């Protein structure tokens, strides 16, 4: 892998982040007045003007933007309008909760989705394949919020087995993780299946069989490494949808994470906090994609060579 390639990729990633942050900055400011939201409609015009002045909201948007950019470069991301603490801190204290939920979900999704897809592909067109795929279609057709509410009704309200809100014990994890990983695992299983089927139809699989390589080894050594190339693409998307799904799920289960903070901050026009979260999300998305890109080169020698030849 060429160094040049990585440098270019990182540059593009930074560009993407900059565009997203700028977009969000502008949209948030033209879609509502923070000062008004905080004080309510009954406040005097003078008080509003003072508040706007304090936060710099009275300046034209481009000036606000320049100030914002320059303070970001100084490591200052602004303060929360609500409690005056640094926005970074407000967000940072929520991150561990979100991460713990995400990685449990990610591990479970990968552990279910990929093996299920492989299983289905290896039993192509048999009953096992059809049952697995029917389950997958069911899984991905139930919306996250609906499944979440359904689970709460069943396990919390009727059976009283699991807590419906909060994040203190391992029991709190069960329903959010099920909610998020159902659809993700289903998508991943379907994708893995088609990637495997395509690879299994390739001439080199037939060649390997004809060379007397046992079927198990053919699958492990020849089919899987090739299927992994396309599965990795999917995993990149998966991290994105995990973030999106996280926002919804955190709200359904009152999980005190970043997703919940995002929704409340947008509603309250707590601009600095929203901007930090958006920056964080785009940073993680872009990093995920960068890792996927690097993984291609690691998995596929053809890509490796192509990259060192690119003009």
């Amino acid at each position, binding site marked *: *892998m*060429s*160094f*040049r390639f990585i*440098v270019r990729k990182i540059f593009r990633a930074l560009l993407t982040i900059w565009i997203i942050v700028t977009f969000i900055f502008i949209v948030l400011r033209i879609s509502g007045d923070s000062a008004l939201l905080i004080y309510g409609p009954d406040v005097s015009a003078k008080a509003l003007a003072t508040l706007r002045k304090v936060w710099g909201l009275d300046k034209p948007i481009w000036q606000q933007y320049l100030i914002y950019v320059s303070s970001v470069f100084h490591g200052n991301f602004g303060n929360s309008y609500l409690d005056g603490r640094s926005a970074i801190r407000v967000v940072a204290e929520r991150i561990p909760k979100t991460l713990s939920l995400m990685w449990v979900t990610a591990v479970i999704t990968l552990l279910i989705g990929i093996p299920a897809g492989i299983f289905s592909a290896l039993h*192509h*067109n048999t009953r096992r394949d059809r049952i697995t795929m029917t389950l997958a279609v069911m899984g991905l057709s139930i919306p996250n919020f609906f499944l979440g509410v359904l689970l709460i009704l069943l396990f919390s309200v009727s059976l009283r087995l699991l807590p419906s809100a909060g994040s203190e014990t391992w029991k709190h994890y069960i329903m959010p993780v099920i909610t998020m990983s159902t659809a993700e695992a289903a998508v991943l299983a379907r994708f893995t299946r088609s990637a495997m089927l395509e690879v299994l139809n*390739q*001439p*080199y699989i*037939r*060649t*390997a*069989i*004809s*060379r*007397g*390589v*046992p*079927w198990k*080894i053919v699958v492990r*050594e*020849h089919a899987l*490494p*090739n299927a992994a*190339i396309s599965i990795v693409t999917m995993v990149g998307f998966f991290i994105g949808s995990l973030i999106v799904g996280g926002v919804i799920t955190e709200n359904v289960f009152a999980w005190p994470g970043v997703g919940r903070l995002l929704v409340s901050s947008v509603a309250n026009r707590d601009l600095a906090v929203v901007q930090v979260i958006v920056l964080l999300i785009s940073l993680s998305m872009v990093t995920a994609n960068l890792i996927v890109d690097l993984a291609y080169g690691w*998995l*596929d*020698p*053809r890509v490796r*060579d192509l990259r*060192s*030849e*690119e*003009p």
Partner: protein
Amino acid sequence: MNAKPSKPILKSKPEPLIQISGLTVDFDTPTGWLRCLHGVDFEVYPGEILGLVGESGSGKSITCMSIMKILGPRARIRGSVKYKKQDILTLDENGLTQIRGSDIAMIFQDPAVSLNPVHTIGRQMVESIIYNTSIPTLNHTKESSEQNSGKVEKYRRVTGQTAHSEAELLMNRVGIPEAKQRLKEYPHQLSGGMNQRAMIAMALAGRPHLLIADEPTTALDVTIQAQILELIRDLRKETGMSIILITHDLSVVAETSDRVAVMYCGRIVEKGPVARIFANPRHPYTRGLLASVLRIDRQIEKLYSIEGSVPAPYEMLKGCAFEPRCQAALNKCKFDQPVFKTEPEGCGIACFNPQSGRVTAFEVLNKQEDAPYTARQKQNEQPLLEAADLLKYFRIRRGSGLFGKKKKLKAVDSVSFSVKRGGTFGIVGESGCGKSTIARLLLNIETPTSGAVTFNGRKISGLPPAEWRRLRLHMQYVFQDPLNALDQRMKIIDQVAEPLLIHNTIRAAMRHDKAAELLRSMDLKDHTFDRYPHELSGGQQQRVVLARALILEPELLVCDEPTSALDVSIQAQVINLLTELRKRLNLTMVFISHDLSIVRHICEQVAVMYLGKFVELAKSDMLFNSAVHPYTQALLSAIPIPDPGLSRKRIFLKGDPPSPIDLPSGCSFHTRCHIARQVCAELVPELKSLKEGHLVACHLAHDEA
């Protein structure tokens, strides 16, 4: 290997190595079982090469894949495949794994996709060795068998080290230079020929008794094909293994095989010793195949082609499957299926009306009562197309790092030629020699680095878009693979009419009529007009591509390998059509091909290209009868000739063409040349006139003249 090399032609019959009888294969389709093989019987004797011939769709590959039982779960295989007194078809997966690779090995058509792209050649070699090493020693060299004596329990416990050195030996055996380095490389880093050698080496790892080679040279250049066929013959001689060689090319059979079996629509229709089949083919299908083969050593006006194409398995009717295309069909052929009659000396035929006598294209030509057309007129006109000092460099980056070195790839290097109106100009060469780049330059798809293309007296590069568009009407391009050149989701008639729409030359209402008329003139029936490309046969598809190119009534047609994706019989159809169209429309043609026989047949003037340069340019007859450049001579001699009795002196080119990025010094051919001298490595030879109309770029040719 226990069997000694045995004489191919057998007086007293030994036991066959493998005996296939009553082999039928059905595929599970949504509409029920579809029969693709209808009871195939044949046998292979120890040490012989059996050629299995037929057009695509005749069931050759299915036959061989059912021997190995690698057709997948949707195939139902019946009959028996007796190998060493056991029936392979009754073996379980475990037993099959034992036999595959160790007793029967297989190599496939396209080596580039038949090897796993994410593993190194070495890793795949080692794997073959590990899974196919059954008994004590695996090394055939004396010293290593001494080393291994005593260690009897080597089964599947070959160490990586041993396997690796064995891999190196095998790579050397199949003629791969710098084996150690190659083992570390991936398939995409090797040339097609090298990959095919590597695949052969993997097949040899288990020292098989039978090697099945499924079109092993179809995807390769003629020069490489000659090398691979030579290797296969050598290996047979050396190891005494039997080989089933699947091919559509009868010339390849003539040069390699001892016996032939001809297949059509899932049946063997004729079999026998090679000499006999070629001297006295009896089945009309065999005769048709033989007649449609282009021969480099003959020149004829019009090629024979078997009409129509192989029916798909679901289109099969009662009676002989070949009946609709047969010239010797009797009435009963429509209703009864001829039974295969076995005859002495390994012959046999399934036909109610066998023919006799040698087939030559001449005879068949006479039967078709087609008068040879008259030669060109108006030779004194101005050239329609002129290429002057065309140069095309690509810059590519080599190596890693932030500032990896950029290198020049000289795809086309100072090429000049001109084609008169109505003339035909052929460009031949191995793949990667830059011939397709020339085609792209001629049509302004690529811009030359320097030099110019002049069409009808006007320089085409740098024209304003509107003017170029107008000029573009008169120049059209025909591509290699018709299926990929057509839009899969557009009806045939619409695709042919589309250029009229783009250039808006005639009224909308007329477009379809004109397209239909043109398609009819190309022997496409009305019911095909509303079909989609995949529903047509390869030959029909290529005719659609031609129609699309011709509907604007161009003056110039640039054909880039228009027949190399097609079967021999179909190839003949397309070439005949091209010849006829050229005559009728007074087309000027630039014909690019790796196949010298086709170029000879079609073109008046031929240029031979090597690594971006023309090395010889002459009138077609002159070039084929008295080629001067050693490369041209080697190309000519690499072409197989469908005449098993013919013996000729052949020049084998060593290795692959060098990389166009690091061209050899002096004459770029000197590294592979069989007559190269000191001067060739130092000076670049100029393309100079040897005699009227014959240009050669070779130091030695001019010295001798």
